[in-house]
């Protein structure tokens, strides 16, 4: 797999990382080396092997559906970079009419 600049730029956009061309060029050879290394997995025969996604055999863990206190709004908002009343504030998404 060749990691060309356009492919890397696309991945950075998906990852929501605003990287300059210089940043991307610095990262590219290292990432390329890592991907070439992990490409060794392609040589293995994994036909019919069930994936292992979790080392414990627990599924559908439930708790009793009893109401209990949650995080108070002030605590949830305490670390927010910007708030507006009881809400997290973000830059405008929809243009004003």
């Amino acid at each position, binding site marked *: 797999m060749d990691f060309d600049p356009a492919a*890397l730029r696309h991945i950075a956009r998906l990852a929501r990382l605003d990287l300059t061309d210089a940043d991307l060029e610095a990262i590219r050879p290292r990432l390329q*080396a890592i991907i070439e290394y992990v490409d*060794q997995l392609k040589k293995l025969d*994994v036909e019919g092997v069930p*994936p292992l996604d979790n080392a414990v055999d627990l599924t559908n863990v439930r708790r009793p559906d009893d109401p209990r206190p949650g995080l108070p709004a002030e605590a949830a908002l305490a670390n927010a970079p910007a708030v507006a009343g009881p809400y997290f504030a973000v830059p405008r998404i929809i243009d004003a009419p």
Partner: protein
Amino acid sequence: MTDDLAFLPAREIAECVRSRKTSAAEVAQAHLERIRKFDPKIKAFLSVRQNASPGAPTGPLAGVPVALKDNLCTLEEPTTCGSKILENYRAPYEATVVSRLRAAGATILGKTNLDEFAMGSSTENSGYFPTRNPWDLSRVPGGSSGGSAAAVAAGLATASLGSDTGGSIREPAALSGVVGFKPTYGRVSRHGLVALASSLDQIGPFARDVQDAALVMSVIGGHDPQDSTSLPGASPDYVGKLERDPKGLRIGLPREYFADGLDAEVRDLVMTAIRTLEKRGAKIVNVALPMTEHGIATYYVVLAAEASSNLARYDGVHYGHRTKAPAGLIEMMSKSRAEGFGPEVKRRILLGTFVLSSDRIDAYYHRAQKVRRLIARDFEKAFESCDVLMGPTSPTAAFKLGEKSADPLSLYLCDVYTVGANLAGLPGISVPCGFTKGGLPAGLQILGRPLDDLGVLQAGRAVERELGLLVQRPAL
């Protein structure tokens, strides 16, 4: 007095505090004093509780001074994960393990340095500063829990907690000359541990001997309804059943763990420890883990995928750094992340995004999950003929700061013996097994069957007891 308290085992401190021979406040002060004196050289701590409130004079850890890796949520100080993106983050709740330590009487001294978001094996990738190895300040303490390992080695804390995703407790324990235990996946609640790779992360203790590690496990282990991956059922009696005769213990030596790349001095120290158990009646069995050579590749695909997903939450909206540059919503998120994350974190997020992208997910992520199954099967097969596996924790003793910075892949290979336990969910411990001629500690790793945490601790204790190595104090 101060230095004597600094190297007392946790169990003796707790006994002295419970019987009022000393007070928790005196023990805390002695350690804070050492932190003031020595931490400017070691830089194990990101934050110190100068007025640490002493633990209660009751409980199994009465007055025992403990340090916490700074990816565990606490209420008293920031929880930074070693990242600039969380520089001022104050957790709104406390991790379960921290509540349990406090309830057992422990004194929390502060939060320790780590590779940013626990991504690294040297603690050089911290967003703040590197931590240094107490045995040689020009060398790394290992990582990512390097601050927690160094603090215990230097007598700045009696015990500490770390997290182990691919070796981040065991490798720094080996390089810093202390005991580090990674329990079976699910043994210790992760409620309040900032997630790196959720199918691999596990919290565990550092201590200067196995008895203290078992004592801390007895406090932090056990089911927690706040963590859905926490295992139900009672914990084993880690402390009461710790002493066990190694006679008849079947020790598997994976041939791949003694292959090329292993430092000769480290190998000799590890083999000397194993031969000591053999002389006491343990049986040596040669086993094979043929998938070992694919462990690192599998690990980096799984880890990067899960990390890129977990770290999506740092978007400048709910908490953490937000860019000052004027921007629309998407640009605000993208700039905040680019400004807040360090280079290694960005690399792994990009790798994770790549292996999860729709046209690559089968070739990389899904394939890695299948190889992960093969790795787990390797261990199952090996454990048919032995009770525990033993080998080196790390291929080399501590390396110099900067030695492996230019090539991330060479750093990743430090984890070759440790990632298997995370991929297969096994318990593992690193126990000191002596020093190289250059005065650097070496670690012996013991791995056990899933849920055989007690067996691993017993074997570790047997190594410690039969080798009879005394706890050494680094010259600072």
